[in-house]
């Protein structure tokens, strides 16, 4: 329905505006309707101003800036409609060290209410996890999983996993 879309848009926009400066350490962003007078068909645009830079559309942003903006949007929706668990597969891939750190901190914060499963190659993201699973293919074509638990006194040490970034 048109009103439902309008109110959902508002709610997501509010949270998106809050998450963006947390991930970018400043700056601002907002969602915009491409057709504010046609709520049944309007698209959703993203207007962005990274800290210290000027306001612009998303197209000119860098690869990492675009990814981080998308993460802010995903988290905004997630914050509005939390699900019991969330799975994020390598969303941190294009991020530099600083941005990965802020991303990981935010995930830890949100994990107090939801379970998060993060597929990653990044060391900083691994450090934020309470539990680590290593997947290996010693026998080609056949996957095996080894679990390593961090946050318990009885942490078993498993074989070295590919903590390569």
């Amino acid at each position, binding site marked *: 329905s048109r009103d*439902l*879309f309008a109110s*959902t848009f508002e709610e997501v926009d509010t949270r998106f505006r809050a998450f963006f400066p947390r991930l970018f350490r400043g700056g601002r962003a907002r969602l915009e309707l491409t057709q504010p007078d046609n709520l049944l*068909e*309007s*698209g*959703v*645009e993203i207007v962005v101003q990274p800290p210290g830079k000027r306001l612009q559309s*998303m197209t000119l942003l860098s690869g990492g800036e*675009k*990814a981080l*903006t*998308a993460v802010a*949007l*995903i988290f905004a*929706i*997630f914050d509005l*409609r*939390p*699900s*019991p*668990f*969330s*799975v*994020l*597969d*390598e969303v941190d891939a294009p991020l530099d060290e600083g941005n990965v750190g802020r991303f990981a901190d935010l995930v*830890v914060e949100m*994990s*107090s209410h939801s*379970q*998060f*499963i*993060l*597929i*990653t*190659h990044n060391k900083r*993201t*691994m450090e*934020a*996890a*309470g*539990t*680590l*699973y290593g*997947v*290996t*293919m010693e*026998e*080609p*074509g*056949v*996957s*095996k*999983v080894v*679990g390593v*638990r961090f*946050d318990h006194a009885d942490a078993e040490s498993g074989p070295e996993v*590919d*903590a390569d970034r």
Partner: protein
Amino acid sequence: MKLRRIDIFGFKSFRERTALDVSDGVTAVVGPNGCGKSNIVDAIRWAMGSQSPKDLRGRAMEDVIFGGSERNRPAGYAEVNLVFSNELRTAPAPWRELPELRVTRRLFRTGDSEYELNGQRVRLRDVQELFLGTGVSVQDGYSIIEQGRVGFIVSARPEERRALIEEAA
């Protein structure tokens, strides 16, 4: 409904029965390229009732069954079990009062499919409806972000991005 365990057998590269216990908080899954991490994500989505082979990077539904390797013959079927705790009684009727919910999906090379809830045969639709409205249905699309999906959101046209908002509505 908290996810407690993922059990994979004969699904994609998981030739042998493999279980992951999912604790609270943040779990990281790591390993080299091609070792099977994203296949675990596919297993979760498949068990929740995804019917699109393309969504699982395949061309036919049969592509999810372990297809063999240099030293191993293909498997006869794929099976994934997802175990949820229902302590908060958030599961929809008629499963509301059960403390635990085990969702099972099997696909045989013959093309036959089986779906179970706590060992009882159900239809695919029962599995899909179990998750509707909980925020993790495969249709929702914002709680499971598969590899490359961030790039898709980034380069999406405004009309495509609308769908994300609609799913949250």
